[in-house]
């Protein structure tokens, strides 16, 4: 009973503190960020948080926004759950009164939180939400993440022109919105490029045994395996494909889920030859990217991934929009965002009419060699 009464007290205290106090000069401009900071998918959210924090330090060192006001971020954890992302969005808008929200991490969460932000006319900017239909939620929903629909065609076209693939087997995780939506793009692109699909096999995102599907694929003798999976499943597939004796020349063409250093760490040499498209690559030679990678390694003792890079750029884009808007006002920021032009670690960036990234020139095709991704030459 004591626990209960304490909870009641905590609830009452929470209810009592309704945030007020509008910002004056030199007071920080506080933005909200909803990311997965706990639970099994937290590595995505934490990478994004690190990207934001690094950008935040850079921006504030350079004088902040709106002529000297520091930028601040209020993080809310969604734990990867749709309801919690929704609650977090409502809290940030209703209580913290943030003029803009960054995140959430997953497309599923955006489908829940996006409509709420849109209803209250607060811009919400996804940095890692790549599924179809995200920005169709409404005019206040933006994303800086390159949608699968832009990246996958580049990957497949490159594979066709470089390796002359003609017949492929397709595998995808059919119980996950992210991998299913990437598969839809793959299917359409393969059809357009005139590549023959020998078979389409499915699996569950938590499966660990893929031998049935791979044995069938081995018998069909394809030129390549087109794969839409999260990195854990993808590593398992790469390992088992080689164990079953599928020729190492039959390489894997992956969706965005495979674009993670984890693939090489888990699958090792079995993943060699895998090619993926990526909006960003750690080894890009331009000075902005080199500086970002060095600073990230210095601060966190770990290499950044694409999620950190996208987050890093996004905060600069948002800061530019706030400066252009002249006030931390949702409506003005929304109008300014669509006009922002920024050249960051991912290359040139601007929003299209539909609030997606307009420029796909930053997309690079990577290939795995010795457990590490490098640019496909």
């Amino acid at each position: 009973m004591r626990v209960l009464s304490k909870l009641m007290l905590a609830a009452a205290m929470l209810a009592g503190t309704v945030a007020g106090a509008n910002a004056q000069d030199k007071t920080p401009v506080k933005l909200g960020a909803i990311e997965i900071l706990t639970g099994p998918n937290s590595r995505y959210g934490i990478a994004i948080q690190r990207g934001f924090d690094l950008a935040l330090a850079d921006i504030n060192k350079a004088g902040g926004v709106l002529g000297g006001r520091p930028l601040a971020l209020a993080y809310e954890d969604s734990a990867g759950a749709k309801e919690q992302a929704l609650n977090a969005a409502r809290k940030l808008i209703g209580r913290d009164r943030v003029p803009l929200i960054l995140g959430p991490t997953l497309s599923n969460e955006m489908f829940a939180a996006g409509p709420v932000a849109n209803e209250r006319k607060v811009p919400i900017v996804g940095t890692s939400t790549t599924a179809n239909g995200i920005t169709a939620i409404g005019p206040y929903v933006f994303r800086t993440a390159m949608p699968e629909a832009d990246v996958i065609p580049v990957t497949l076209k490159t594979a066709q022109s470089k390796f002359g693939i003609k017949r492929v087997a397709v595998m995808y995780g059919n119980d996950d919105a992210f991998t299913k939506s990437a598969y839809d793009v793959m299917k359409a692109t393969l059809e357009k490029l005139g590549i023959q699909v020998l078979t389409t096999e499915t699996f569950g995102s938590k499966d660990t045994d893929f031998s049935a599907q791979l044995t069938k694929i081995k018998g069909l003798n394809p030129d390549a395996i087109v794969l839409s999976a999260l990195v854990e499943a993808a590593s398992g597939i790469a390992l088992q494909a080689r164990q079953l004796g599928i020729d190492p020349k039959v390489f894997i063409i992956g969706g965005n889920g495979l674009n993670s250093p984890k693939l090489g760490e888990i699958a090792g040499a079995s993943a060699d030859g895998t090619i993926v498209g990526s909006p960003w690559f750690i080894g890009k030679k331009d000075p902005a990217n080199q500086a970002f990678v060095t600073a990230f390694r210095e601060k966190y003792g770990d290499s950044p991934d694409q999620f950190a890079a996208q987050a890093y750029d996004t905060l600069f884009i948002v800061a530019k929009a706030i400066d252009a808007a002249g006030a931390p006002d949702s409506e003005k920021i929304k109008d300014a965002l669509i006009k922002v032009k920024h050249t960051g670690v991912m290359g040139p960036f601007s929003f299209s009419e539909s609030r997606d990234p307009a420029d796909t020139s930053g997309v690079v095709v990577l290939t795995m060699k010795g457990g590490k991704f490098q640019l496909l030459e």
Partner: protein
Amino acid sequence: MWQTLDDFYWTYQSLIHGIGVNGILALSIYVVLAVGQLSLGQAAFMGVGAYTGALLTVKFGTPFAVSMAAAAAVPALIALVVGGPTLRLTGVYLAIATIGLGEITRIVFLNWDYAGGALGLSGIPEKGGVLAIYGTLAVVLIALILVARSRIGRAMEAMREDEAAAGVMGVNLPRYRMTALVVSSGLAGIAGCLSAHVSSFIGPNEYGFETAVTILSYALLGGIGSPVAPVLGAAILTLLPEVLRPLADFRLMVNGLIIVVAVLFMPRGILPWRIARTG
């Protein structure tokens, strides 16, 4: 003042909805547990209700009342069909059979392209809301309290304590079990439909095994002595993650700790008391 209240309500709207919906789900598991059965199919029935209601509203534009009625009827009908063979099982065997049912439902939704497949169903119009949710919860709660106070309630309790003895005393066991399963499925379906119409998006993975266990835990934490207990359990378990938000990284740990402590020290639930009898 009014503005503040309005903002407060808006901020916590999803949470307020969640407490109500989970309360109805807790009552749905209570009905099964009250006759001494253990079902882990509540999440599946909730999913069937959510999809039935949402599909009707989105694809056919039916009025909310019709969607609600169908969302209660379809899971109840499924329960009636699968109840025949599965209710011969008791205890863990029934639990395992209902887990199977849940998996089948999930896989059907995953592969059913008309209902969005793995991408789920988005753009469900907002209907019902707080009034419909808490109205339903109140009606169901009062009805179940009345049942618990009646002759039927006594028979249910007798079944829970000792099924053989209850049977010998003339309680029609199969009929009670079947009624309990059908009623609980209908309730879960209604809860699913209500939540689908306030969250604008549903996906097949929301109604899996984890949800089934969460629903069961409402009744475990609250207790099943009276219908009020599981509703309280649901309210606490729904509020906890949000109340603990300031703890940041330790949130899930503390959340789990509180539940473990509660179950250890209050094994019969937070509200173990029984409803006074009449008749």
